[in-house]
Each structure stands twice: as C-alpha cells, then as structure tokens.
C-alpha cells in the first residue's frame, strides 16, 4: 500500500544495493572484504532472528547459541575430524543448529514474552558453560582453529582468499534473503504474524499457536546456524563467547536498529551495525559507553529503527497522496 508511487525508487534502491555489495571487493582492501563478509553474516543471522522477534513476536535473548553451534560444528568437523567439503560441512552445521533449536524451542515455546526471553538466555549460557567445560573436546576458552575448507576441489579460506570468501558469503546472503522474503509472505509467514498480533484470534481461526511458535523457532535457529557456519571460516576461529548472552544481545540490537517490523530492517540494520561497531571500537576509547548509549537512544527514540522510520515516513506520504 505505502509502496504506491515509491515503487520505482524501491526497485532502483534494491538494484543499487546489490551493485554496491558486488562492488565491495573492487576497493581492494582485505579489511573491507572481511568487514562486509562479517556484515552479511550478521545480516543472515538478524534475518533469521527476526522470524521470531518481528514476525512471531517472541524475544529470544539466547540466539548466540545456534550461531555458536553452527560455528563450532564447522570448526569441529574441519579441524578435529578433518572433514573438509564446504557444502556438506555447512549442511551438517545447519542441521545441528536446527536440531538443538528444535529441542530448546520445544521447551521454550510454551512460555510467553519475558519468561521466554529468560529461558532462551539461560539455555545459551548453558552452552557457554559446556563449551568452557568440555575443553578437551571444544578447546574451551582457547577456542578452536578452523582450517581451510574445500569447495569442489578449490580451497575455501577467508584468510588466504578474502575476496572469494566474500562472494561465497554474498551468495548465501542472497539465498537467505530470497527464502526469507518468501517465508514471511507465505501462508505460514502470515500465520506467524497473526499469532504475533493476536494469539487468541489465531487459535480461534484454527492455527495451533504453540506448535507454530515452535516451527518459527526452529526456522530461525536454522538461519542462525547458517550464519554461524559461515562465520567460523571467515574468522578461521570459533570461541565460547559466541554463546555468551552479550553476543546474543548484538543481534537483538542489530535487528532493532534496522527495525524489526520491516522485512529489510534487520537485513540492513545488521550491516549498519557491524560497520558502525567496527568503526566505533577502532576509533573511540570508551567504546562500550558509546555503544551502550546507542542502544539506549535507539530504545527510547527510534522504536521503528532506521529502515522502519523511513518506511513510516514513506507510508505517511503515500497515504497523503493515494
């Protein structure tokens, strides 16, 4: 509706965005390649996270768990069991994340709002403790190195070939965005939104609310797992902090920064967040202070997030001139 009249700009914006993403490596800075690979990965994560937050109205404060599981699965397979084919490794990682997502989701889905948040947080901390504890196997706080993978005979290593890895990430990013877009506009996606808006009504029109919440949880866990699985090779490393709740807080912030009620909110929000964060940490001495204030300001003054606010403005204009 609000799109009427802005449709053209909307399309061009998308294309410009794509072009920029494809052009990044041409700047020839391995730092930027790294940074944007990171941004895209965060973006995938936020996208998956938003299935819960934005579309089902469930706030998880422990999504680092599935991200971490993805990362650690890759690290384990590649380094510990030297199983290197890229796509299978990725697949397994996603499966593992999804599996645990299913279990924990099942335990959490029957809870609402704050209880849900607390439980997810507690569970992610459980994983944190376990990674710490099972150091013989996971490498504990020292983390675990991720050796290079193998993509149909070509070596995949973000360290040796940042550009190649960036494009690889980009492809997965685009796939995630496409599938994500379809999901939220599918009957299932609408059902989730109905649950978010009015669980009572959703149940009253024949949607099994609890089960669908669970499905949503599983899907978002899968996306988080994919993000994590891409993250480990990028860093060449996996470490327990990925499970820590403060890390889960980052995706929450990234999502809200973009705006969790808009499909592209989290996607773009995550990219902005990653770049802003990197810049702040690199240049500001008291970066936690600044980052914290950013959170506070967003929470108080930008409930719609950046993209969300833009949409709202466009919507107003759209409704003024129908």
């Amino acid at each position: 509706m609000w799109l009427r009249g802005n449709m053209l700009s909307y399309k061009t914006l998308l294309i410009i965005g794509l072009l920029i993403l494809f052009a990044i490596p041409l700047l020839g800075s391995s730092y930027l390649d790294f940074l944007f690979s990171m941004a895209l990965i965060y973006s995938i994560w936020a996208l998956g996270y938003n299935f819960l937050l934005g579309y089902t109205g469930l706030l998880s404060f422990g999504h680092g768990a599935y991200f971490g599981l993805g990362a650690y699965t890759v690290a384990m397979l590649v380094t510990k069991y030297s199983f290197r084919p890229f796509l299978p490794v990725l697949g397994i990682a996603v499966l593992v994340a999804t599996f645990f997502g299913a279990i924990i989701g099942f335990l959490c889905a029957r809870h609402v709002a704050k209880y849900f948040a607390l439980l997810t947080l507690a569970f992610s901390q459980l994983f944190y403790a376990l990674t710490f504890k099972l150091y013989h196997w996971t490498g504990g706080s020292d983390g675990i190195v991720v050796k290079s993978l193998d993509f149909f005979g070509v070596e995949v290593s973000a360290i040796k070939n940042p550009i190649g890895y960036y494009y690889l990430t980009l492809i997965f990013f685009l796939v995630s965005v496409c599938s994500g877009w379809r999901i939220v506009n599918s009957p299932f996606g609408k059902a989730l939104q109905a649950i978010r808006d009015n669980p009572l009504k959703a149940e009253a029109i024949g949607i099994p609310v609890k089960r669908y919440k669970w499905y949503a949880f599983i899907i978002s866990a899968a996306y988080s797992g994919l993000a994590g699985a891409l993250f480990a090779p990028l860093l060449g490393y996996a470490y327990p902090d990925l499970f820590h709740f403060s890390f889960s807080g980052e995706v929450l912030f990234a999502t809200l920064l973009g705006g969790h009620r808009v499909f592209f909110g989290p996607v773009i929000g995550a990219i902005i967040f990653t770049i802003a964060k990197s810049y702040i940490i690199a240049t500001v001495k008291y970066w936690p202070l600044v980052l914290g204030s950013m959170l506070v300001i967003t929470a108080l003054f930008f409930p719609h997030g950046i993209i969300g606010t833009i949409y709202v403005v466009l919507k107003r204009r759209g409704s003024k001139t129908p």
Partner: protein
Amino acid sequence: MGERISRRDFLKGLVGGLIVGGVIGVAGGYVAAPGKEKTITATKTVTSEKTVTKTVTAATSGAKTVTETTTTTVTAKPKPREIPSKPIKLGVITILTGPGAMLFDPGLKALQMEVEKINAQGGILGRKIELVVKDSGGKPDKCIEHYKRLVTEEQADFITVGATSAEACALAPIAEESKVLTIIQEGTATKLFEEVDPHPKYVFRINNYDALDAISHAIAIHKAWPKAKKFAVIGADYVWGHDEWNIITTVLKKLVPDMEIVAEAWPPLFAKDYSAHISKVLAAKPDVVELCLWGGDLVTCIKQGIGYGLFKQCKVASVTGGEYVWGLGTECPEGILCSTRYYFLYPPWDRWHINKEFNEEFHKRYPDSHGGYPGFNCNSAYTAIHALKLAIEKAYAITGGWPTTEEIIAAMENLMVPTPGGYRYFRKEDHQMLGYAVSGFTKVSKEFGFAILDPVWAVPPEEMAPPPGKKWKEWVESWKIE
C-alpha cells in the same frame, strides 16, 4: 497490486544477482588474485620495496612469490634504500576493557613510556615511533578486525599484540598471511607454536608460554619442598588452569615418582567464593596446595584461605603468584611459593641497572598502577619495542639501508635483548623468546607495603624450555633422572 509487481521484479533481480554472484564469485575470487600478482610484479621494478611489500599485503594469493622476488632484488641491489622520513607506525592491539584489562593496562603504560624515551633519543634510525592503540576487549573477532584494519587501512609497519590465548591463536595464521611483523607479547597458549603456527615467519612471542611457567614452577616446588608427596590443586576451571596443573603434575611425577594427587577443586573463572573448594582441599590433608589461579581470583582465594587456616595447615604454591599477591598488601601470608615470568626485583637492582631504571621510572610515572611497579606485561612491552629497535639497527648495519620486514625478521631471529628481566633471546626455530622464570617465597615488606618474593631464585630456560620442535610432553617424558 503495484506492490506485487515490484516483489516479482525484486525476486527476478535477486535470482539474476544470484547467477551473476556465482560467476563473479568464482571469477573474482579465484581468477582475479593471480591477475593482481602480475600487476604487482610489473609495478615492482618502478616502485620502492616498501610500497611493494605493502601492496602485497593487499594482494591475496600469489603474494608469497612476489615478496620473494623483492627480497632477492634487495640483496642484488647495490645501493641501499634511504631511510623514510615519516615516523614508524606501530600498531598495538591489547585489552583495555573487561576483566582482562588489569593485565594489559600496565603493559600499555610501560610501552608508551619506553616509546617516549626512544623518541626522545631520536627514535629508531632517526624515525620517531607512532603508536596506534586498539582495544580488543579480549574478543578474537574484534582482535582480527583491528589487525586487518591496522594492516590495510592504517598502514601500520609493525604490530605488537597483548592478547588472550584465543586471540593469539586466531591471529597467528592471519598475521602470517598478511606478512606484517607481529610481536605477540602475551597470549601464551602452548599450542600457538606447537600446533597452530608451528613454523612462524612473521609472528614472534615474548612472554614465557604456559608450559614454561608450569615446568619451571614444578621444578621450583620440588626444589622448595623435596619431601612433599601429597599434592592438591585449586584451579580455575578452564583450559589454562587444567593445562597448568596437568603439566605441573607430569613434571612432579618425574621428579617425585611416588607423588599422589589427593584433591582437586575447580572453581569457575572469576568466582567470588572459594570457601567450599578450600574446605574440600583441606579435608584431603595435602602437603602442598597449588593455586592455578591468577589476578583477582588468586587474591580472593588466598584471602579466603587465610580465613580457613589454609596456610597454617599446609604449604601453598602459585604458578603465577609473583605480582598478584601485591593486591593483598601486608595481609599476605608469608612462605607462599610464587613463580612468575618476570619479577620486578630480579635481577637485583644493584646488579642490573636496566631493571633499576625501568622500575624507578615506572614507579615515578605510575605510582598507583598495579602495586606501583611493573609486572611481566610491562617487561614484555619493554622487550617488544627494544627488540624491534635492536633488530632494525642490526639489519641496517648489515644492509646499510632501511631494512625490509624480511630483513628485520632475519635480524630478530636469535637476537639477544637486554631486558629489565635480564638477557632474553628469540629462538630462531619457533620465534619464542626465552628468559629466566623467577620463583620465591612471599615475605611481607614494610618498605613496599606488600609481600615481596624473598628469597628469590631463577630457573634458566635450559631447565624449563623443551628444545624447538619438541612438544613439552615428549620432552618431559624423555627426562633421565637418577
């Protein structure tokens, strides 16, 4: 309606993008890089070596061959490169936030102090040193982010790192790849040079790594209490704690074949209550209790140990001890066997002026930094900057011009550096610096207002360091003790 059209197009766009992405991905990724290499080798002849090695860092694969060609051309070239006028940019990645900060903040202070001193004396070959400090907060991702940023965006010439084990291990492969001389001060995981980066070229490490600490400490324990048989541990429940204890016991088994472990308690990192652990350990009536803790944890544990009469009932040793007991002030129990990588009173000031000057200046500048005296990270900071200075000057003496990174590395291998902690040298094979480890018994000193180590003795590298390429375990197992 209109919206739907846009969606379809959007999808079309993405699908199209997908295919393009695939193509460019493969092409850009795996074909572009060699192309880059060509361009560089072309430019090489015209541009100066420095810029070449720099552009190479931007290049990805194939860069190796390039630098080789450059170095060969260097040795071939008769006329030495003149010394650049712009200051040396030294990137510093360290931990200034979170619980780790207490370790690295004094180190940074010492580094700034030394850099100012060197700059005051005209810098290195007339080039002033400019520090670019980044805080990683102890997180590997941030650490790597900073590193890449320093190398590419901020064009740092050298980088020195004070980091956690995780960060160091994550960083090493990237450092090797980006071909920038990287001096790791702290980040002492044994596996760094044993597994992660077994044949380092661009990475050096200064502080004694965990195995060295543990082995020297175990030897010290044996020297101190040869008759001790029953051992117990209170150790931080993470890799470091367990590793240290594992190594200590392995060595002790060698030295005291009939030793036994009577109790183990593993409080989590940054625990606030050790009473239950102490109770447990005391219940087992050990001869010696080892505290595999550091920082606030160690202080807290010792403090609560006093409350539980730990020090009355058995001997206590701490693998890191040394400078942390300062936190206890004059309340510190006497006779704890503490080991450390560098101790501010060793070598004695009257016999080693570097140490004296270093301590006095540090104390004058930062009286309220950790106990007011430099700790082992201050020593490593001093060592890092001075080793770099020496290496550059040495390389300059040979080549007669501003040396390339590779030449500096060559000069740095087997380099003997006079540090506050006595002479230390980089071992050529694994780029690990070796120096004395120090052990001693705590003794409250009114003069300093905290417990110092007295008597104090040093364990020489030969006694604690496995020969290059040998893992500590094999080495310890291979000891012959009659």
